[in-house]
């Protein structure tokens, strides 16, 4: 779980500029409503705020909403807002503002993907009073609070939202501790302190304005350069840290490490069950048995990541871990393939059936996989070869990768998915997620189509009783893991290195993005 990095006993001091170096792609829009990806979440956490947040245990806690109630049928929710909160453009935070945000997220013109999905069941909003807003749902949604805690559903100034999308993208207006003052494309974003800030989340360590005066948010794609810049003191915080760098940094006194695995799904390889060869469960199981993931994780991540045996992130309390299903058993894999009819081997040692080689096409999105992960795939390729799988790694840029998926030209694929709460399983494995959007994209990349699983996931998403919900998700995961649709690898890695002068930084337990509200510089 996210741990605060600052353990110094000295008093926080106000002032100073913090430079953050991100290895993620530069967002194309600083408003996370538009699209909705992790780089947006990282930066917008500094200037936008959500209705609710999570604490370190995963319990929902108040933020912009003081309190909330759910109707018995689960179809209406009422949120009471914190009083006297003002957006940085002077617009007051009220029920109408929240309504405007929901409308903005649901407007097709906004082209929201993450937020849009999360609000799918919200059919109407209503201002009960200036402080109270009511959501009306088409079906009960046990994940609503978790969804609303995400930065992609943060609340922006309705006045600002009325501007053109370009303007809003360049400088979204929220209630957060910092304000976007400048954005030099392909270089940096400048954030300055919100001097009227008054709305920290319930678990913040102080009140009032932030300590830092300014944050310079830079984009440094090269991981080695990023680390060198941190060492040289040019930047104070870096993200997307490579395992070997973490190991080095941990030996250093002047650098602190913040490990904050992302919630939602674990990193895993999805096996496409809709086509040969993985339409045969035996072959799926054989593949999983033939992949030596444990050794790979040990050597590549050098203790910075734990092997996962679950479809969900280790920060998700409802995750089911099944180590016995995912062990490296090459002998068993051989037997399974023989059983499945892949009995012969060609001159290169690959299995053959009816003249066809046992080929697994694996498009790898170079934008979405860190180098260590790509190395991990290479190691899986090497071990799977011994069993007779021809795992073909096809590195490609993001749009080619999407195109390959849309054309169903893949047998295995790894795609991250970050979302707060176990409801991510419904998005990833419900059969309705096989239906592609007009663009061709779909979330159910294993193409699992199991009515029983569908029912479990739908029920879970509507079950507001915590225990019943947990049970449903457990059943669903047992079904999923037992079907060998996926090979879990490890949590979605989210490591930050901070200069030891940077004190008081923690990752928000929602999507594990760091917040610099409590941060101060001990210089």
């Amino acid at each position: 779980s996210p741990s605060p990095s600052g353990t110094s006993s000295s008093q926080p001091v106000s002032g100073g500029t913090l430079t953050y170096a991100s290895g993620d792609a530069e967002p194309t829009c600083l408003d996370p409503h538009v699209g909705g990806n992790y780089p947006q979440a990282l930066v917008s956490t500094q200037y936008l705020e959500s209705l609710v947040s999570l604490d370190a245990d995963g319990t929902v806690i108040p933020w912009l909403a003081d309190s909330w109630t759910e109707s018995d049928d689960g179809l209406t929710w009422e949120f009471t807002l914190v009083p006297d909160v003002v957006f940085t453009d002077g617009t007051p935070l009220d029920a109408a503002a929240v309504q405007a945000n929901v409308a903005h997220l649901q407007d097709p013109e906004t082209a929201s993907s993450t937020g849009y999905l999360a609000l799918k069941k919200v059919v109407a909003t209503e201002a009960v009073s200036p402080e109270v807003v009511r959501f009306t749902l088409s079906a009960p949604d046990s994940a609503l609070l978790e969804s609303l805690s995400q930065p992609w559903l943060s609340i922006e100034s309705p006045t600002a939202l009325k501007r053109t999308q370009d303007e809003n993208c360049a400088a979204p207006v929220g209630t957060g501790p910092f304000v976007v003052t400048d954005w030099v494309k392909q270089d940096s974003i400048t954030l300055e302190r919100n001097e009227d800030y008054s709305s920290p989340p319930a678990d913040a360590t102080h009140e009032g304005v932030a300590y830092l005066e300014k944050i310079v948010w830079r984009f440094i794609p090269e991981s080695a350069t990023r680390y060198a810049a941190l060492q040289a003191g040019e930047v104070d915080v870096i993200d997307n840290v490579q395992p070997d760098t973490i190991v080095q940094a941990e030996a250093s006194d002047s650098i602190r490490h913040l490990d904050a695995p992302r919630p939602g799904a674990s990193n895993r390889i999805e096996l496409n069950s809709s086509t040969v060869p993985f339409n045969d469960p035996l072959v799926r199981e054989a593949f999983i048995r033939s992949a030596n993931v444990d050794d790979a994780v040990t050597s590549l991540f050098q203790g910075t990541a734990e092997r996962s045996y679950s479809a969900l992130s280790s920060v998700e309390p409802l995750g089911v871990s099944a180590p016995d299903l995912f062990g490296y058993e090459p002998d068993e894999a051989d037997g399974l393939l023989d059983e499945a009819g892949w009995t012969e081997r060609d001159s290169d040692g690959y299995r053959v059936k009816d003249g066809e080689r046992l080929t697994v096409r694996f498009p790898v999105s170079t934008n979405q996989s860190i180098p260590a992960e790509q190395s991990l795939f290479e190691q899986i390729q090497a071990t799977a070869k011994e069993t007779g799988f021809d795992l073909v790694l096809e590195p490609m840029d993001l749009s080619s990768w999407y195109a390959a998926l849309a054309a169903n030209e893949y047998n295995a694929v790894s795609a991250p998915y970050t979302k707060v709460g176990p409801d991510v399983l419904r998005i990833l494995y419900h059969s309705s997620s096989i239906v592609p959007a007009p663009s061709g994209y779909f979330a159910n990349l294993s193409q699992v189509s199991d009515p029983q699983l569908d029912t479990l996931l739908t029920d879970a998403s509507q079950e507001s009783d915590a225990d019943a919900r947990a049970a449903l998700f457990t059943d669903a995961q047992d079904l999923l893991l037992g079907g060998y649709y996926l090979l879990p690898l490890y949590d979605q890695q989210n490591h930050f290195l901070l200069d030891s002068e940077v004190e008081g930084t923690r990752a928000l337990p929602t999507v594990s993005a760091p917040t610099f509200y409590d941060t101060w510089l001990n210089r």
Partner: protein
Amino acid sequence: MSDIEIQAGLGRASGGQSSHPEQRPQRAAGRPGVVEIISALFGLFLVVSALVPTLLAPGDPLGIDPLAAFTPPSAGHWFGTDESGRDIYTRVVHGTGSSLVIGIVATAIGLGLGILLGTAAGMLGRVVDFTVNRFLEVLFAFPGLLLALLFILIYGPGVATATVAVGLSTAPGYARIIRGQLISVRSSSFVEAATVQGLPRWRILVRHILPNTLAPLLVLGTLGIGQAIVWASALSYLGLGAAPPAPEWGAMLSAGRTYITSAWWMSFFPGLFIVLTAVCATTIGRSIERRMRHA
């Protein structure tokens, strides 16, 4: 793509052909120097690596050994191991073939196109010359890597695309040199002398013009291979060339750069081989050039 143009520059600057071969007796070819011998030996090493890599490195370039990952250079692993425990020396040796092939094929494409355009411009009369020249001018307005990137944008990344892209981007330079060479040879007095002898045009072309135009291409080609390898590896480095885990130098270097602070050998040795190969090609090319000039 660069050395080629340097050559063009050299030709332009020194007036190309006109300099008399006798003028510099003291810098004659003579015995091969130490550097030339070393380059030749390294060249031999590269050729053996490319043809029978197992002779020099019997191991499997793709064979992983996760528990031996990140071993620094040692007696067991001369160049150390990478993140998956693969032996870097083995990979470098086995990668020679593909790196050389990329360099050679790219240069061949560049030279081939260059010859086509250059001879067309130099031989087919004014209209063609004018057209080809304008076309070359346009191509020159795309700096090498930019042309390669455009090509990759259209045809997608990969070894084949990177090779063709590098080849394409070198072509205008070659074309210009060939055209210049052709024109200077065509108007040289020995070609006139052949006309005076009453040789038919095509005989003059085949017997005098083409051989004298194309002979320097041997040098250009040699020099070009080194540069082509460097540029192709730049594309690999940008993630637009060979895909890992293929033991291609640029790709290895690219993969190794991630670990530069903890495992310098991963990027140092492939990089060193790229540099050495380019140096070796340049030295050999230059010494051929010197010999031809003094021959």
